[in-house]
């Protein structure tokens, strides 16, 4: 006879809702499968008390299939970490973060990168291209994803197009999926550039940072030539969304929030709505400013305060028709490039790193190098980096993530920051109940208090 217990990776909303049939339910989130679902009040009470005998057989079977309840003897943490280890050593999923330039045309106060200009070295471009092509050609590779990173990657659009042309052609010839994404400050975007990124470079995700309404954005995201970028960026994105000209590229509006702009987020949300940045292909991504090794403690918004305000912002965003990311509905396979042997960062000088927060950060720029392109043969995985033992650290309790119910959908967020003594937990750690409330509202459930 198996004894079942509530999974340590199950979250049940503290709030009750009424569904369309008048039943009282609670939202639940089984993070081992990244599944959001509702349970009736009796089931919620049984899960809360641990008295699972009160749940009937079909109910238990459903919960078991969701891994919301598990065998008492199961080592769930080992299971979750096993999944991460398997995903992180999967040679079939190759990920490259490529920095085609080390320069940025902005100089934001809170940025931890140190940018420098360097002429494009065609030999290094060829080596980078060859490295990715070797991965695509490797029989063990099932698919390749590239993140164009910087500095400001669009300063090197010519190089991106040149490399993308080779990657796309090779992936098509090998009949392997290829996708690309790009974070950008948006200042160099034009309608034509967007179409090039969409059509030629197969960009599936574009993350543009807008830090506030015009005045604030242009103060914080200051271009080195002193010219603001707010209007141009908003106009280009608004037109693209309206025209549907880049249907396969998801646009994420990232807002780096600190004490300098937290009170302007509401106004920015209205600006995004007025400019038509809504719909299924756009989402708002509010991110607290964090340390890249630099000291941002004077401007950081305290994590719990950020999380509380975020729920209000997201609720207003929804009313304004703006999209935002729901709690993850896909279990992570690896935390980041730094935890995957088959993920690497290649800078414009041909140095290979395991962590994207090393290449342009003083100190780490030199100490974080794990290889150079010249060292790496063909498609061989990069050498071990500083964070490839991350799951061992979580497993033996050197890191507190092993106790967190969000581990299956978070992975620990950023091993580098943990090691540096920061707490990089996503806001969901503090506002998961609010996020379940938002999900309930999205499903048309009504708070019981509201009748």
């Amino acid at each position, binding site marked *: 006879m198996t004894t079942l217990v509530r999974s340590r990776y199950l979250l049940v909303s503290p709030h009750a809702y009424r569904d369309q049939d008048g039943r009282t339910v609670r939202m639940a989130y089984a993070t081992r499968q990244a599944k959001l679902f509702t349970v009736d009040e009796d089931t919620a009470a049984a899960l809360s008390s641990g008295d699972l005998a009160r749940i009937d057989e079909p109910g238990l079977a459903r919960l078991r299939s969701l891994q919301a309840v598990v065998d008492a003897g199961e080592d769930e943490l080992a299971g979750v970490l096993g999944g991460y280890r398997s995903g992180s050593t999967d040679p079939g999923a190759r990920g490259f973060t490529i920095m085609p330039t080390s320069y940025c045309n902005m100089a934001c106060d809170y940025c931890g990168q140190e940018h420098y200009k360097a002429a494009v070295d065609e030999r290094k471009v060829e080596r980078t291209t060859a490295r990715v092509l070797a991965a695509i050609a490797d029989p063990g590779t099932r698919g390749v994803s590239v993140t164009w990173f910087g500095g400001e990657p669009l300063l090197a659009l010519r190089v991106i197009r040149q490399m993308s042309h080779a990657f796309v052609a090779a992936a098509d010839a090998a009949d392997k999926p290829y996708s690309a994404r790009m974070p950008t400050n948006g200042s160099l975007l034009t309608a034509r550039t967007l179409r090039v990124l969409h059509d030629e470079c197969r960009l599936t995700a574009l993350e543009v940072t807008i830090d506030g309404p015009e005045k604030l954005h242009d103060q914080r995201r200051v271009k080195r030539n002193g010219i603001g970028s707010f209007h141009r960026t908003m106009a280009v994105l608004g037109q693209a969304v*309206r025209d*549907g000209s880049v249907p396969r590229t998801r646009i994420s509006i990232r807002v780096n929030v600190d004490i300098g702009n937290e009170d302007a987020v509401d106004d920015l949300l209205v600006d995004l709505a*007025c*400019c038509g940045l809504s719909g299924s292909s756009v989402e708002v991504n509010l991110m607290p400013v964090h340390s890249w090794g630099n000291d941002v403690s004077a401007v950081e918004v305290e994590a719990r305060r950020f999380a509380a305000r975020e729920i209000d912002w997201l609720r207003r965003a929804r009313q304004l*028709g703006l999209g935002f990311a729901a709690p993850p509905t896909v279990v992570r396979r690896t935390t980041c490039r730094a935890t995957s042997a088959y993920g690497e960062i290649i800078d414009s000088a041909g140095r290979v790193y395991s962590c994207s927060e090393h290449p342009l950060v003083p100190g780490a720029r030199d100490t974080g190098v794990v290889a150079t392109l010249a060292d790496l043969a063909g498609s061989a995985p990069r050498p071990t980096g500083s964070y490839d033992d991350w799951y061992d650290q979580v497993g033996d309790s050197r890191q507190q993530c092993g106790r967190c119910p969000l581990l299956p959908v978070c992975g620990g967020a950023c091993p580098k920051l943990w090691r540096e003594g920061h707490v990089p937990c996503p806001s969901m750690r503090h506002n998961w109940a609010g996020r379940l409330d938002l999900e309930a509202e999205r499903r048309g459930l009504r708070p019981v208090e509201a009748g």
Partner: protein
Amino acid sequence: MTAGLRTSGPARAPGPRQDQPAPPGQLASPSPLASPGQLAPMRPRVARPTPAQRAAVRAILRERIGATGQALCLVYAPNRRTEATWLCAYARAAGVATQLRPAAAATAAAVELACGGVPGATVLVLADMTVRMPAGAHQLAGTDTHSPVDLWAPAELLEAEALAAARRLGGAPLTVPTGGGEATFATGPFTPGTPLGTVTADVTGADGVFVADAAVAVNRAVAWDARLARRPVTLRLAAGTVTAVECPDPVLARFLTRAVHTHNANRAGSVSVGLRRLPGGFSPVAGPVNAARVGVTLRLGVPPDRPYNAASADLRIDVTATLQEVP
């Protein structure tokens, strides 16, 4: 090639085609040719239109396409599949090349996306919410309780009423007494906005206080309840421009304040008087139908010479105040 739509004679209810959508919840019936144990080919079914709806569908197509012989593209939100099917079937029966384009979701953004890239065709958009449409497209909006086929069919009585209202309202300034004040609009001539049931005039001057207590509609994908009965919007107007906005709903207040003062959607562009006495109240869906109910709708827009940003230059806000009687 079609010579136009049939304009008279008994309605032949055309059968739905295989590529036509079926309303949700309706089952396909098994083919009589299917042998026992065999799976019958699926044949979607839709609710049949009533005789009045058949007449309305024909009249809508006659009015929108007439004898032009132009191809038809029917863009429809998911909740308007049935009406799309009717219009499609009748148009095809009349020999009009007709394309059905479902929007992926019942949102303005999804409908706008589905409207894209239809050169050389008449575009009819079956969607209830306010959407930004390409030039030349016509929206047939309904509400939760009223089908667009019922609302957009030409109706002689309504047309006559609209013509009379347009004549009556022309000439003198229009004074609108609302709950918290009074606004006076100098206007150009009123023109009937049939068949929906409005008369509309360009505003040449607007002063006073306009309290919108009925509904709000914005040509953006906002997701709020359009009704304003519990959160009226007060606009102060001077020389045709909004100078102040008040609303007890903080989200709406912030949106309107910023839309007016930052994005410059502050110009009183037109005023419409609604003529229809539809059963039920104003719709929570932020769409064009609320403007057709008895009331006054003020349209705010961005002056062409004062856009804040190219992406918000077409921002348009309709706020409706209730009226007891048509002026």
